[in-house]
């Protein structure tokens, strides 16, 4: 069974590696600044003892005040996992892409862009995945009708 790491402990480690990136943390999650997602992700992937080499899931949620992007990370080596979250501005949501770290993020970032409108800066092919070019709006936003 994969062991979920304690969010607060990971947050303390991240604060040491990437200063001023952690906003909040809980039992199972760490909330970071949207601008520092890529540095935090790289830190989590490369730091010995953490080595999150596998992105299980990347998804987004619309909370009306902000859009939250969630990364569920797993380490194949140590068999542990952690949830990384970031909250971005609803009007102009932009988060750095993590495709260069985990190739599996490619389609999932495109999906989040397609359905929620979050732009992933640095993504090699940032376009709609499911819907067609020219579709108006992002249908998983809660004000979409």
């Amino acid at each position, binding site marked *: 069974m994969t062991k979920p790491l304690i969010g607060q402990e990971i947050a303390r480690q991240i604060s040491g590696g990437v200063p001023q990136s952690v906003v909040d943390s809980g039992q199972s999650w760490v909330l970071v600044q949207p601008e520092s997602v890529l540095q935090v992700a790289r830190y989590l992937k490369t730091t010995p003892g953490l080595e999150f080499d596998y992105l299980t899931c990347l998804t987004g949620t619309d909370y009306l005040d902000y859009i939250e992007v969630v990364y569920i990370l797993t380490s194949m080596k140590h068999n542990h996992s952690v949830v990384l979250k970031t909250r971005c501005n609803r009007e102009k949501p932009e988060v750095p892409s993590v495709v260069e770290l985990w190739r599996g993020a490619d389609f999932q970032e495109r999906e989040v862009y397609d359905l929620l409108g979050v732009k992933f800066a640095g993504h090699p092919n940032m*376009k*709609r995945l*499911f*819907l*067609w*070019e*020219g*579709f108006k709006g992002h*249908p998983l936003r809660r004000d*979409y009708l």
Partner: protein
Amino acid sequence: MEIGKPDLSLREFDLEEGRQIEELIARSQQPIKDPDEWLDSGLRQNVFMTSIAKVLNWGRHYSTWPFGSGLACCAMEMVATASSRFDITRFGMDVFRASPRQADLFIVAGTLTWKMAPAVRRLYDQMAEPKWVIAMGACAISGGTFAHSYSVVPGVNRIIPVDVYVPGCPPRPEALIYGVMMLHKKIDKRRFRQQD
């Protein structure tokens, strides 16, 4: 419908695809009429032609080759229908063709999205006459749960004319077989040199 010219760049290709889908949506706001008004139009043909039609229909009836097209979960029931327990071979339908050009029957099994719709229309156009369509399951009939969704076609009869509707979510293999038997009845009523 033309899908692409060889020198289109990827971006232009996407835009072209989007344009075609938008155009198809604009064109498909009303359902296509079911092709069955000929069924009760009375027999106006001579005895000789009726006999030929009978033989032809008998042949078509027992060799309706379906096109293996599964769009969503209904496809599992379609596969179950084809496999040994329900055994669609009894109706001479065991050969699921991988190409529309060799198929007579299009079983639309599952949810049809607008992005898939041009492809379905194209496959239908590629099938040789005479051809039939079964709309299998709630999504194919009316859009089902997703009827008012932003991306789902509310019934495949917006895109292609449907001969038999098989309700269910998903329909049991028995239901699909019953639909196939209904279709056979319809095939038996076809007249010689019928254009529909």
